[in-house]
């Protein structure tokens, strides 16, 4: 088991290097010299030079111990992402944004997983009936409505018009108040795709021999669904669930923007608006690192759920 974990961790090194090369290519080679943009239109030559000095833009790109490529790697590995346009260190901004983002995404994520898996089990129970058909039709319809429309109409009707929820974030609101509506909208938006996925997983499982055996020996439907089917459907469920966790960190860009929640999604949108490559670079890198780590965790989970896997 230990060797399996170590081997799995070693596999992540090339991926992290790849991400660093990609961000370097994107933000330094293609993105180019940003000193003019930072300095503003009427900056003097000295200011521009100072900025280039600070960001290391005056150094050679490759092939030197002090080149921009080497510094890019060094900074990323020590989580030193420089300062944003407003002179605040990028890493501080990210730390500050993580809280509100998680307050939004964790309840949304748990709610979505629990609701869609339970609904999928119900559908597996009534498979082939008109309820099943109706659920599939609703899922496909739900998947076809644009995300933005869900958010805008939800915010307009539920918060603005009928006043069930606060329309915007404000610092004196407690988290349950301001995240309630975004969480609700997030769950409804994702439900179509998720339910359809879990339904397929469950129905694939229902066709196995052990399910027929369980029914044949007279077990109740509830026992078969929860004790047999759910357990065996764990592998695809774990993949879907664990690999979705790193995206929680990112928050939901659009939800945060609409509800003014000062999380990471909001930070990202601001960075896009002001073209702050340093923030986008840091977000890309951190989320990739998290994704890679959770990938390893998924594989370890597999080995626990299905002992046959670690033998490979």
């Amino acid at each position, binding site marked *: 088991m230990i060797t399996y974990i170590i081997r799995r961790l070693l596999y992540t090194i*090339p*991926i992290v290097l*790849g*991400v660093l*090369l*990609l961000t370097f290519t*994107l*933000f330094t080679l*293609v*993105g*180019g010299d940003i000193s003019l943009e930072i300095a503003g239109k009427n900056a003097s030559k000295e200011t521009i030079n100072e900025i280039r000095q600070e960001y290391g833009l005056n150094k050679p790109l490759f092939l030197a111990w002090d080149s921009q490529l080497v510094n890019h790697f060094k900074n990323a590995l020590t989580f030193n992402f420089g300062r944003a346009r407003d002179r605040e260190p990028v890493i501080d901004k990210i730390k500050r944004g993580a809280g509100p983002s998680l307050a939004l995404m964790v309840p949304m994520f748990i709610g979505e997983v629990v609701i869609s898996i339970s609904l999928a089990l119900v559908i597996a129970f009534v498979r082939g009936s008109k309820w099943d058909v109706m659920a599939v039709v609703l899922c*496909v*319809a739900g*998947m*076809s*409505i*644009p*995300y*933005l*429309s869900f958010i*805008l*109409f939800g915010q*307009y009707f539920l918060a*603005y018009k009928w006043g069930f929820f606060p329309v915007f974030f404000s610092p004196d609101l407690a988290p349950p108040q301001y995240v309630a509506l975004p969480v609700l909208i997030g769950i409804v938006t994702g439900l179509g795709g998720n339910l359809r996925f879990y339904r*397929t997983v469950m*129905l*694939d499982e229902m*066709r196995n021999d052990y399910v027929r055996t369980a029914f044949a020996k007279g077990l109740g439907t509830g026992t078969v669904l929860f004790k047999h089917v759910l357990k065996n459907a764990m592998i695809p469920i774990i993949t879907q669930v664990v690999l979705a966790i*790193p*995206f929680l960190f*990112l928050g939901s*860009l*659009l939800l945060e923007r*609409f509800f003014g929640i000062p999380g990471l999604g909001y930070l*990202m*949108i601001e960075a*896009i*608006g002001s*073209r702050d*490559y340093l923030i*986008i670079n840091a*977000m*890309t890198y951190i*989320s*990739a690192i998290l*994704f*890679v780590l959770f*990938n390893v965790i998924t594989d370890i989970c597999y080995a626990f759920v299905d002992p046959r896997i670690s033998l490979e």
Partner: protein
Amino acid sequence: MSDIDKIISSKLPKGRSLWQDGLRRLWKRKLAMICFAVILIYFLLAGFIYAAELFHWHVGPIQWQEEVGRQYESPGWKHVFGTDIFGQSVLRKMLYGAKISITVALCASIISIVIGVPLGAIAGYFRGVTDEIIVWVYSTLSSIPYILLILAFAVVLRDKALFGYKLTGITTVYLAIGLTSWVGICRLIRGEVIKHKNREYVMAAQSYGCSNSRIIFRHLLPNVFHLVIIDFSLRFVSFIHAEVILSFLGLGEATRPSWGAMINDARIELSRGVWWQMAAATAAIFFISLALNIFGDALRDSLDPKLRIQ
């Protein structure tokens, strides 16, 4: 051919290829054909707008700039979807938006097919170091959240010059989507080519001395290409939605109407009770997404019965 041969061949039932079989199955699904018609209408509309712009036809959608009424006229007989803040017809803007969306989704699909399919086939066919490098590249790309990757590409590429051609508006959008979206199809084709590589038809081609490139492009790819069509009929929806989000965030088309920009306008309008621009954009996106989702599923069931989900 002797007479007997002719008689025999005329009596034999005519053979059908797998493609004909698949399309015949698809033809029998009425709902799928209706959806196909809907998709076709969107494509024809986009094509019509291109033609109208090229030949300067005086038709509604390309004259979206014209003021047809007062500010914020509500939907009625005169203006089906009402008017916007400048008194422009929302219906015309919606129709014009189809051109932008279809162009972006089509170009992004072409870019990602052109990158993903050959890379996947090469990785699966040659294996070894080539395979490892290609797998490394796409694993790297897929370890970054999709929407973040598209945004990063779009931000960086925006207003950059490429071969002396300045990247603006939708060019940035479809480049960003296309350059990041080839991973899925590459992985799919690689897996399929690995499966097909040891089949008799590939060995036969190798034994009579076909070059590797001929085997890949003339023998292997035609046998896995239905997967590309299935995959992209479903992926097209996500491209359209990505375009909407990018335009909404101000990274897309800035001067011409697009569905994302319409939704962005509607953000402020909704609080004044002006819902029609939002409704028009939502409806336009909804119907093509629905049609593509249903048609894509039907296409998968018809062309590849093995993948069929009961």
